[in-house]
């Protein structure tokens, strides 16, 4: 029954030079990427980066202004109908009717997609078990907790056995435990063969869930790769230093062979080193001591997604409405 789209190989999403303007504000600024069949692929970026805009174009809710995008081999502009039949969506905001029951909402979705009655009903039963909502089958959606609503929406997104499931910030506003469980659901769904495209502004979510990540900021993809690849671009270890003369310290440290890159943020120096940091550290301390530079704090750690993000976007993940954080590199690992 599976009808492969035209020209299908193992690329299921292909986007080239996608742009989107709201008025003259460039929300998506020429992004290109591909997602392979069976992958979990993430857009990691702060609020306002353009993630939802990009998703809305891919799911055909916003019309494509510039560039090309195909999903399962279908062009989002010329084959919107086919695209719609191939995908499932969980929107960033809850989109449930408060006054309909769990079962009714799934039934409604199945009817919207013209699923035959028997298949529809069987699928609802299966999915309610998958997302552990059997007990809530006849509950109005307004009486569900935030996590349950999300699970219901994921179940709804899976009703039609989509080739790609889009999840726009699936765990936003959920407590840590629920988030963790949600990740399990998402992994299960992926294991059953659904390609997942998700957006998030949570580092750990991107890190733990995704096969590949694209960091996106100001409408541009800044870097893409697996979590390890991204971290490895920052070297093996990161050393943070705080001295009484950062300017001189940086000049001196540039000479140290295993130091790959030095950046200064605020009153703090960050060193990326290619070797085991614990071995490099004594040499660094000696070098600075000999030059008469006082070290006030020193910190050694493995690069995390946060570091990757901060390095490539030059800012901490900012929350809604907040100005970019200034205490760059202050936060340690989680």
């Amino acid at each position: 029954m599976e009808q492969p789209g035209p020209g299908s190989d193992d690329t299921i999403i292909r986007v080239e030079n996608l742009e989107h303007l709201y008025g003259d504000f460039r929300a998506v600024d020429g992004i290109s990427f591909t997602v392979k069949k069976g992958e979990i692929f993430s857009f990691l970026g702060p609020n306002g980066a353009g993630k939802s805009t990009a998703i809305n174009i891919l799911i055909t809710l916003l019309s494509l202004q510039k560039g090309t995008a195909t999903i399962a081999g279908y062009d989002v502009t010329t084959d919107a109908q086919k695209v719609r039949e191939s995908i499932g969506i969980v929107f960033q905001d809850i989109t449930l009717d408060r006054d309909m029951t769990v079962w009714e909402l799934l039934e409604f979705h199945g009817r919207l997609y013209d699923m035959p009655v028997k298949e529809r009903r069987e699928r609802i039963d299966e999915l309610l078990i998958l997302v552990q909502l059997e007990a809530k089958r006849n509950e109005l959606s307004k009486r569900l907790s935030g996590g349950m609503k999300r699970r219901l929406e994921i179940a709804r997104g899976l009703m039609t056995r989509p080739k790609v499931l889009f999840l726009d910030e699936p765990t936003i506003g959920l407590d840590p435990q629920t988030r963790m469980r949600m990740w399990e659901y998402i992994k299960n769904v992926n294991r059953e063969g659904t390609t997942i495209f998700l957006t998030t502004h949570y580092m750990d979510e991107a890190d733990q869930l995704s096969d590949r990540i694209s960091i996106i900021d100001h409408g541009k993809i800044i870097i893409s790769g697996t979590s390890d690849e991204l971290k490895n671009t920052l070297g093996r270890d990161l050393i943070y230093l705080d001295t009484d003369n950062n300017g001189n310290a940086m000049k001196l440290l540039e000479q140290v062979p295993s130091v790959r890159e030095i950046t200064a943020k605020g009153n703090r120096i960050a060193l990326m080193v290619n070797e085991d940091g614990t071995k490099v550290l004594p040499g660094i301390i000696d070098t600075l001591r000999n030059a008469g530079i006082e070290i006030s704090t020193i910190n050694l750690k493995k690069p995390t997604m946060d570091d990757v993000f901060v390095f490539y976007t030059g800012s901490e993940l900012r929350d809604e409405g907040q100005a970019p954080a200034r205490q760059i590199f202050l936060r340690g690992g989680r």
Partner: protein
Amino acid sequence: MGYGFLTVYWRDMIRFFRFKTLLISSLLQPALWLAFFGIAMSSNFDRLMAGMPVPEGAYAVGYLTFMGAGIIAMTTLFTSLFSGIVILFDKNWGLMREILASPVNRNHIIVGIAMSGVTKSFIQAIIIMAFGILIGAAFFAGYTPVQIVIGVLGVLAFVAMFALGFLFLSAAIAISMESPEGLQGVMTLLTMPIFFASNALYPIDTFPEALRIISAYNPMTMLINGIRYFAIGPDFYALGQHYLFTPGEVLLSFLGLVLFSAIMFTLAWWRFRRAVVT
């Protein structure tokens, strides 16, 4: 995607029957109008009109019967106009994105909403007529069973056509607006003149010239003419006025409503095509 509209219809009807208080109040309001305004004004008007002679053998109806038709029309107007609110809620917080991103054709959304709106208006019209008869309105008085069936169908045909027009208008406004408050404002602004510049509660012949012309082209007046023709009869006296409808005039009123609905459908269709909900 042949049956998308049925899905939209099914969902709307679930909501209609789920909100018991809303359902009851939507029926209670016209009942109260009939019971209080209708009966109270009846005795007044009937006394006032006592001096006005009705020709020998002519058929005269009381005020309750006269305004009963107006109350059916008023209820249809309110229900239809305010039905757009669900679209607005869907757009902001509900299922609109799900529906728009699904393979369902957008016209089906409009058609589904229209069907459920008409169904609701039918239920209300029938209940109001029954209640009216119960408290003494002379609807279908002296009709044979066949005439009653024709009469009821005629009333419903007019109600449907009128409801469609305002449902489409409401949908078009709702899909274009941001806040429920704004929508509510526009609706309230619309209902007043439509209701009062019609022959719902009083004859329009005594209106000033300009207002009379406006009233004559008011879809509400066309609907009420249709209801009176089918529920009371083609030739009767009320409030001292002679009401005489030829089948041609009634047909013209109906066609007026058809035209009105067609224009509103086009408007809604155009607004929905352009609708971007993200």
